[in-house]
């Protein structure tokens, strides 16, 4: 019984939340990594792209709700998602057309692109606030829980609760589906292959007749899909607020770099490394220890490795260590 309690406590407070957050980060990091490998710059506007996609989704969701359309137990936002992806894609392609294309023609160095994306970030920052204001918004309808904490306690008779939200399962399912599709697309389709060729060697790709404008456009459309999906899943699971989405940029980049910038597989692993390290290092193991250890050995302290203030230090420490020993990240990406 004690063993089960310990397992449930760890699952409920550590494994489930960290997995969900990791999946959300992974989707964000995939977008960052894709832009880095194909367009060759770090896109600082990525957090705000996620926010833009989410704002549009919220708008369409509200419209659908007013028409009485819903998905039953699933959130209506899922239905709005494809439309929001399309609108976000238009914005991103438009941004590229208006700004990045100019620098590409001049063959500007990557740092110029990064600075331009910083400007785009600030503009989008204002744009989303104009569109949806500054307040928190929740747009999760449908059934909130698959397993409720109290129901689980009654059912199992354990002291520890276990809760599982619909959005947590949804996040994982959607993330897996999108990642599977992305890998199939990059490895099996003609467009995907030309994107990889463009990423490996731009000049050779151009010589072999690949249309660069098409590659760039497809990249932005895929990035729009990844960013909007990541933003919406995150917003469904927690809440939408412009400030938080802006702040998501940091862990997203940490995930992409730890995994190896430019490597899609690395971005996914990086997302989980960041989320799990944040939760595990600051976890209070006292309760688990009490369940598992004999009474004589029960701890008096909290058994916490590091206080929660330092959770960001943890992911950055991992970042530094990885970059010291493997400058290209855990998986072979480009060095930064």
């Amino acid at each position, binding site marked *: 019984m004690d063993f089960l309690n310990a397992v449930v406590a760890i699952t409920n*407070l550590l494994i489930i939340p960290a997995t969900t957050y990791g999946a959300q980060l992974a989707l964000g990091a995939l977008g960052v990594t894709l832009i880095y490998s194909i367009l060759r710059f770090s896109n600082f506007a990525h957090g705000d792209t996620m926010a833009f996609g989410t704002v549009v989704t919220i708008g369409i969701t509200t419209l659908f709700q007013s028409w009485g359309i819903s998905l039953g137990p699933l959130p209506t936002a899922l239905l709005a998602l494809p439309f929001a992806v399309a609108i976000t894609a238009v914005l991103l392609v438009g941004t590229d057309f208006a700004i990045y294309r100019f620098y590409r023609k001049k063959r500007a160095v990557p740092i110029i692109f990064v600075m331009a994306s910083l400007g785009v970030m600030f503009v989008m920052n204002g744009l989303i606030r104009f569109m949806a204001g500054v307040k928190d918004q929740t747009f999760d309808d449908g059934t909130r829980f698959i397993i409720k904490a109290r129901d689980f306690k009654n059912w199992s008779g354990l002291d520890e609760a276990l809760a599982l939200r619909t959005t947590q399962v949804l996040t994982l399912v959607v993330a897996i589906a999108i990642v599977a599709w992305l890998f199939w697309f990059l490895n099996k389709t003609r467009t995907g292959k030309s994107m990889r060729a463009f990423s490996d060697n731009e000049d050779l790709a151009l010589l072999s007749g690949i249309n660069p404008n098409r590659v760039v456009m497809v990249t932005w459309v895929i990035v729009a899909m990844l960013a909007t999906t990541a933003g919406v899943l995150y917003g469904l699971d*927690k809440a939408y607020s412009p400030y*938080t989405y802006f702040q998501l940029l940091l862990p997203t980049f940490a995930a992409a770099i730890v995994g190896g910038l430019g490597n899609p597989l690395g971005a996914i692993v990086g997302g989980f490394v960041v989320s799990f390290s944040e*939760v595990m290092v*600051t976890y209070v193991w006292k309760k688990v220890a009490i369940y598992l250890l004999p009474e004589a050995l029960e701890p008096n302290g*909290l058994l916490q490795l590091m206080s929660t203030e330092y*959770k*960001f230090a943890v992911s950055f420490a991992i970042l530094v260590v990885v970059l010291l020993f493997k400058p290209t990240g855990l998986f072979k990406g480009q060095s930064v």
Partner: protein
Amino acid sequence: MKKLLLATAATALVAGAASADEVKLGVILGFTGPIESLTPDMAAGAEMAMAEVSASGNLLGGMTVTPIRKDSTCVDAAAATAAAEELIAEGVAGIFGADCSGVTGAILQNVAVPNGMVMVSPSATSPGLSTVEDNGLFFRTAPSDARQGVVMAELLKEQGVGSVALTYINSDYGKGLADSFQAAYEGMGGTVTISAAHDVGKGDYSAEVAALSSAGGERLVVAGYVDQGGGDIVRASIDAGAFDLFHFPDGMIGDALPATFGADIDGSYGQAPGSDNPGYQTFVSLAEGFNGEGTYASESYDAAALILLAMQAAGSTDPNVYKEYVESVANAPGEPIMPGELGKALEILAAGGDVDLIGATGVELVNGGEAAGSYRVVTFEGGEMVTAEYR
């Protein structure tokens, strides 16, 4: 080009002429950043007092008051300092703000004190601001958290709560409040199982919730902001079944709390600065185009009113002159002044009389310029926030 230059020069002249009978007040609040959802009501509250004074035509022989808004960002001391310096450059006669304790301290020390500018904050509550060297230039219409910590500890002890988990926002406000609460509560024999900091606006709070839940406690005290972090932690705690009952200090008290959590937080308690003085209801009913019950909206009205009444009492808009009069217009003796009566107060002062601003919060300044502090204790029943008592 010549025409343009001439036009600009003419505009400057007109602007210069207009400024002779107008007084500019800086309104520096975090219009972006972690409390961006609270600040619109706060600014509106302050600007309501300014509009009232302008409309009365009684300020120093008919001067009008022009608010100039700047963004304090709440968290970025460098940005807030730069914004405050812009205010000085634009020739303000006083600064209303700032909001969060950290940036307020930064503006006070880097801008207000060197430039001899009066600052009245409606919401900076860190105990550290009581002892800072301010040359008598700094006032606040919100009480210090040294007091709130004690009030909160007393409340919990009276309800028979023997142990709590505590999480606070990693800022001057959160740290100051958490320390004063922990000291008071432990002094009364209570146990704080864990004191865990959280940062604003981060993507994920699973780590904090996991740590808090594992440490345990009868209630979770969330000394944070409802918009950022604090609200997320409450949501995650409820979802994971980690805590059922909470205690919320002022940063968490807002319409967003019952609106977001509904009946999930029934039975929880909280407190925020507030009083049962009749001025509060008057202020709420006078509030037009904004929510007068918004957190710190009433303190904001009083803060702006204090600056303007002090100017009238001093007969000058020079901060170094009127700073001496802020306490006297706030405190007894004098004719009590309710919200909406600022015009009358200006008349009394012009005639050489004395006023005692009751305002929206019943403001009384003690300890060198901070509000004495009465608190509104709230509880949650059936998904509604209701006032339990005042203390």
